[in-house]
């Protein structure tokens, strides 16, 4: 008995020591020559292979930006599709170097799970999709409604909390699969469909008649989606952080993948520092001085990435909203690059 207890304590220590011994993700990544990114795989606009098997999405582009910063080549990423259940273990066990899989940042995940969340790359929130025919203008009028919702998600808990807090009754209709859930809603199985607003937009886009449906103005939860890295590797976290912030900063400065080469000749000292014409930033991060230039050139600024993957001209057709720059009333804000 004593022996076994000793054995397990030692095993635990061994695992911990192993975890501490290889703290330098940057060195590991450089040694193997690519970044292993954990992505969703099934979420259009965020992480999903297209019909040719090429990965596309906002989260995929985030991982590509980190690769561009580290290697100067955005294609040096390998993707591991992860389910909601396997995602955190994959990061903890070192199977992936970065988790860009539309994960909501929460306090417990940030602490007890041993993760570190980086800069938010998409501010989402839970909303309601409803048929115009019902004449409902606000989520407060939904008393007694049947609600289509995915089981076992935070979405399900949020909607129950919301109805309880507002003294309303609801009848949940739970269906396991996203596509089938939307199908049930459009077939009239329930009065409203609740999910993250980004997904509701996608559902609405493929409705038999999209104009007949509206997304109610209430957003009942905060879902800041952020990439995560292992806890305790500050350098790697900085790199991921500033790779995302570089995209935001570039949009703020008016630098895009199209004009970045001309911007190299800019006289503006802020842009010169940002693009590495006047050095300093790269060295501080342990990267090439051109890291921001490489990101913008190969992946684009945040606005370009947003519009390409989820923006108004994609099937999702999402407005910038909270994800606009702070100068346009959104939350995207970058500290100065100096």
């Amino acid at each position, binding site marked *: 008995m004593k022996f076994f207890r000793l054995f397990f304590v030692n095993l635990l220590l061994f*695992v911990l020591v*192993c*975890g501490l*011994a*290889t703290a330098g993700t940057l060195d*590991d990544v450089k040694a193997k020559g690519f970044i292993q990114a954990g992505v969703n*795989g*099934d*979420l*259009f606009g965020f992480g*999903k*292979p*297209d*019909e*040719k*098997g*090429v990965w596309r999405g906002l989260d995929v582009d985030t991982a590509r930006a980190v690769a561009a910063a580290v290697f100067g080549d955005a294609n040096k990423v*390998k993707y*591991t*599709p*992860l*389910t909601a*259940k*396997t995602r955190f*273990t*994959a990061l*903890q*066990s*070192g*199977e992936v170097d970065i988790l860009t899989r539309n994960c909501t940042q929460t306090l417990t995940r940030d602490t007890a799970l041993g993760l570190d969340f980086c800069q938010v790359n998409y501010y989402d929130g839970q909303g309601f999709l409803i048929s115009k025919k019902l004449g409902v203008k606000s989520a407060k009028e939904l008393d007694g409604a049947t609600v289509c919702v995915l089981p076992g998600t935070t979405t399900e808990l949020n909607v129950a909390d919301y109805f309880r807090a507002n003294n309303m009754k609801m009848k949940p209709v739970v269906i396991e699969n*996203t*596509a*089938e859930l*939307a*199908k049930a809603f*459009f077939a009239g199985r329930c009065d409203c469909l609740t999910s993250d607003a980004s997904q509701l937009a*996608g*559902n609405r*886009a*493929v409705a*038999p008649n999209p104009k007949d449906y509206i997304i109610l103005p209430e957003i009942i939860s905060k879902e800041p989606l952020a990439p995560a890295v292992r806890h305790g590797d500050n350098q790697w976290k900085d790199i991921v952080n500033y790779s995302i912030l570089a995209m935001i900063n570039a949009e703020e400065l008016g630098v895009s993948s199209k004009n970045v080469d001309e911007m190299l000749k800019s006289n503006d000292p802020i842009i010169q520092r940002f693009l590495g014409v006047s050095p300093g930033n790269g060295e501080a991060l342990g990267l090439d001085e051109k890291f921001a230039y490489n990101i913008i050139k190969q992946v684009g600024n945040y606005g370009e990435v947003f519009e390409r993957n989820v923006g108004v001209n994609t*099937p*999702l057709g999402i407005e910038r909203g909270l994800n606009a720059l702070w100068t346009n009333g959104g939350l995207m804000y970058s500290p100065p690059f100096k």
Partner: protein
Amino acid sequence: MDSKNQPSKTVYAKTVKPPVIQIGPIGWIRKNLFSDWFNSVLTVITVIFLIKTVPPLVTWAFVDSLWFSTGAECHEAGGACWSVVTGNFRFIIFGFYPHDQHWRPFLAMILLAGLLFYSQNRDHWNKYLAYGWILGLFLMGLLMKGGILGLDTVESTQWGGLPLTLILSIFGLTAAYPMGVLLALGRQSRMPIIQSLCIVYIELIRGVPLISLLFMSSVVFPLFLPEGVSFNNILRAQVAIILFTAAYIAEVVRGGLQGMARGQYEAAESLGLNYVQTMRLVILPQALKIVIPPSVSILISAFKDTSLVVIIALYDLLKTTQSTLTNPEWMGFSAEAYIFVAMIYFTCCFFMSNYSRRLERELNRSNR
């Protein structure tokens, strides 16, 4: 001359045809479909059911259907949208395999089909065929993985779709079978340690669902490895499938071993055969023959079980299909896509069960 002296003509009895309502199609219908009031009612109900369902189904599947269109056109039209299959065909079949290299898994699958087809005939079973299989598998691995002879390396993490399903099942089944036989022999063994190890293994594995084994292999297992050391996800799933199937095979084979008459063992012993010879020459050939039907049904269910790797995010045939369906363009056409996948699974399973029946017949014939 008298007519009586003439050689008599053969007179045939005049054949009277039965009434027209008792023969031909009408007779058949009366006899089989309207023999009494109960059958008549059943027939009428069935006909009404078929009239109600078949024409709309045909209209949906073939008349109003779209075969090569965009998703938007499909959403407009009312019929089946087979475009979801044709438009995403290569992703559904080959998954993440680099688009311009698709000929490689295709060629590998052709090679596999050819080998399977050639091995069907028992006259071809000799040691050259065994070499052929080894060479074939090597070539298939080479085609899939590349790396030499000017072929680009394609990591196994990029394998997906039908080739992945076939790899998981074929390697799973071929490795599980001998392992299952060994386990069954171990369980029958007179050596207590071997026997109890085998019993514990079999009962432990049979006591948990395959999903939990897959989860163990993909979620729990990596936590015990030092950081940086990681086994390939496909390999881990493959091992889980082999371990799982082997336990079931073992129990089936044990049934066959217990079905052998005691006299067979005694006869072998009286000939002076040792244990290995007894098993190899006398017992196993007969025992394995008895258990062909149950082992094939295990193999068939193991083949279908490979689709469970979906939950650990391996992109097998089913997962690539599901992934296609999450694209807003193709959302809502799940029926068409799943029908297509079901047909592929059905073809493979039907081939297996058909072949097992044929094998059974041939082996029984040689027995008589």
